[in-house]
């Protein structure tokens, strides 16, 4: 797998970060994916994806200040880099190109 292609789950994580904006950290990313897709996701899968995305320079992270409602532990906030956004756009273009014209078929099941 080349450095710049994204796995399926990695795309979901990237999209979740974009949706969450400044509130994107481990716990919210996991909830966002679970709520939107209806899948059960293990925390481990999210952290592994985040590690890989960070290695691919698609996201960067920053440690926040300690928060009392989490037992006084800090949040690690994630944000999509410009490079990450480009890669995601490319993936989205490919997807849309393939889906174009099939809307009816794909919607039926939803």
């Amino acid at each position, binding site marked *: 797998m080349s450095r710049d292609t994204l796995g399926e789950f990695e795309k979901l994580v990237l999209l979740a970060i974009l949706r969450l904006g400044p509130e994107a*950290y*481990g*716990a919210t990313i*996991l*909830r966002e994916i679970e709520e939107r897709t209806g*899948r*059960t*996701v*293990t*925390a*481990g*899968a999210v*952290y*592994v994806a985040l*590690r*890989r995305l960070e290695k691919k320079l698609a996201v960067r992270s920053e*440690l926040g200040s300690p*928060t009392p*409602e*989490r*037992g006084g*532990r*800090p*949040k*690690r906030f994630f944000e999509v880099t410009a490079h990450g956004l480009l890669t995601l756009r490319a993936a989205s273009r490919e997807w849309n190109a393939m889906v174009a014209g099939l809307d009816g078929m794909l919607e039926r099941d939803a």
Partner: protein
Amino acid sequence: MSTRDRPPAVAERLLALLLPAKERNSILGDLEENYRVRRADRGGARARIWYWGQAVAAPLWIWGERGASMITLSGQDIRYAARSFRRSPGFTAVALATLALGIGATTAIFSVVNAVLLEGLPYQEPDRLVDISHTALGIDIERLPSSIGMHLVYGEQNRSFEEVALYGNTTANLTGGDVPERVRLGVATPSLFRVLGVDAIRGRTFTEEEGLPDGPAVLLITHRFWTDRFGAGADAIGQTLMLNGLPNEIVGVLPESFEFIDPELVAWRPIAVDPATAEFGGFNQPGLARLRPGVTPEQAQADLAGLLPAVSERFPLLSVEMMRNAALTVEVRPYIDVVVGNVRTALWILMGTVSFVLLIACANVANLLLVRAEGRQREVALRTAMGADRGHLYGQFLTESFLLASAGGLLGLGLATQGLRLLRTLGPDNLPRMNQIGVSGDVLLFTAITILAATVVFGIIPVLRHRDAGTAAALRDGSRGATVSKGGQRARTLLVVSQVAFALILLVGSGLMLRSFGRLQDVELGFDPESVLTFRLSLPSTSYPDMESTTAFHLAFLDRIEAIPGVDVAGVSSFIPLTGFTAVDPLLLEDRPTEPGGVPPVVASRAASPGYFEALGIPLRSGRMLERADAQQRLPVVLLSERAVATFFEGRDPLGRNVAQGIPQQPDAWSQVVGVVGDVPYVSLTERPMGTVYFPVGRADRVRGMWLSSSLDYVARTAVPPTSIVPVVRRALAELDPSLPIANIRTLEEVTRRAGAQMQFTMIMLAIAAAVGLLLGSVGLYGVISYVTTQRTQEIGVRIALGAEAGVVRAMVMRQGMAVAAAGVALGLFGAWALSRFMESILYEVSATDPVTFIGVSAVLVVVAAAATWLPAYRAARIDPALALRQE
């Protein structure tokens, strides 16, 4: 915040251990946040299960990203796995039980090993603490503690230690409460607390002045005593406790975590030593020292060895020549060795043993999975043909293995917790650091790693099986029962052979232990422990200041005990057998003076009353027993034990000769030998009895008489159950002196049983391990033989149709099973022969390669293997050829 808001603490600790420091806090925070969200949405139980799931899965994604991408733990995969487990409840139950037993046993023993052997001692920089002791092999003494004289010279002249200390323990009568109490005290030079690096939490530790002979009588009390007696009040400092009738002022309270030599101690008292006037003293107190940074125990030992001449210079009683004749050497060992002592070997052997159990369990589950994998080849082929992603399929298998291993691991953890509870109640009292044993973070980590390893091992098996199997081939092969592959069969047979081999090794270990224990039961005790009550009584020197009052009291009390209905005979001695007391003194012969510089042989000394020998059934070999007049008139007579006679008189008649104890320059009063009695083991069952000299109670012995007679063990042989007379004995004592407490009330049988407790403990643990190993091994053998037989149903059907007799078919299947068992036994015998020598030091009068054990356990294993093979053989012989052939 209530604790219910928090995620499960154990799971959280497990995660904290596993997570790399960089990510730990943020991830734990994320999980805690989501735990709360889940709790609010779906309730506490489901949230806890979710959290545990994350914790158990953690090792996989923390250490193996690839594993995590395969084990998605997605709802779909879990549901699929659960369905496949439900479809084969037998497989699931056997696999879970096997794993739970294997992981449970390993975790339980690891908890013990971890607490007893691996954790550092709870003192400041424990690696620098060393024990100072001596050996005198020239006079057959393997370990001598330190003495005041040695301590002083070592303390002043060594170049290796920051500081040295002496310590010991004693008992005292504590009065002033509702009832008089016998309490245990520690004694120590003031330096002990600095050496250990412990400070008082209230008040202070001892000052140097309090360690001088005329210093103030002060006490440091333990945290437990402080809580029990003073309700942990600040006013305890400065209060006075009456010990043996004398006041002692409390100057400090020790921390709750502090424990040294004995968890039952109530207080510490200073050992009084004045460097200016001190005498050499006996070799009675162990020495402890703190090494200077960078100094090794070996260097310190060499340093102290060089100081022995200086000891002699300062204390001429111990001449250089005597040291040489006694082969006196000094030994400096890490203090941890003293604490864990002889259980180290036993525990490592147990740890090795349970790892074998775990290996057998893993082999069993691997085998079960292999069988399953064969059965599912078609399913996999079909799904692959229909376009299923192979990676995803493997992920499902891994998910299954992982769920299996985790569930087995959690069950095992529960089993271990229960097992440890049992262990704490059953374990020998002398297992050190017993109270620290528990499921700690290290233990959880150990279990997690075990589960991870098990997952990888099991998970890989079906994946390997399927990777090589061509889809087309598996699909083409239409018949259901005939997919047995050569490779799979070989792998399974190998697994079973190794199971049998491991089981045999376990059986040999427990067999050797069993034989040792049997030998121990046969040890000629030299006394009859049946129906004897024993207890200890100490007379405080304040109320009983001299030999007259002491003797009068003991004789009067003995009279009262003997008057109790049901008591046959009663007696006293300084120490009863098997209580581990080893103090010895030189024995001198009047008509054969010790050569200058020579070292007289040493014997144990005891005071005894006439009834002692009768109550214990110690036989008289020649001469006469002690008589009441000897005690009353305190006559200068003694009895010797057979071994003492053999050592000193070399075949000549000892009767009528005069002996004395003490050092050659200053012998005590001479006493005439009037009788010889049988030997009795005073120290332990496995050591041969020491020569012993018995003085009559109350002998006006200048040095030793007083301390030998003020604290005595009473023995009473009864015609009724021994403990039934305890209340009457207490009443009789109260009539004589209501201020005296009775201690150590036990039957002599109990004393004897305890002496064998540690070996018994090791034996039971090994026997349990061996039984589990044998069970799992035979289940494995049964499983493989019945599987193979099922696979051969058609072939056997054909044979039967062609006229093969039932007996022949049975023999054929049996032969196959027994060949596997025989290979396992052969391999196991070789393994046991190689490994059993590690057990040598804990065996007693049994060789590590004892042929009886080796042959015996092989026979047991062969019989069990035959039983495990018989059932499939029996079934094979009853195959209905018509049915079997119709399957084609």
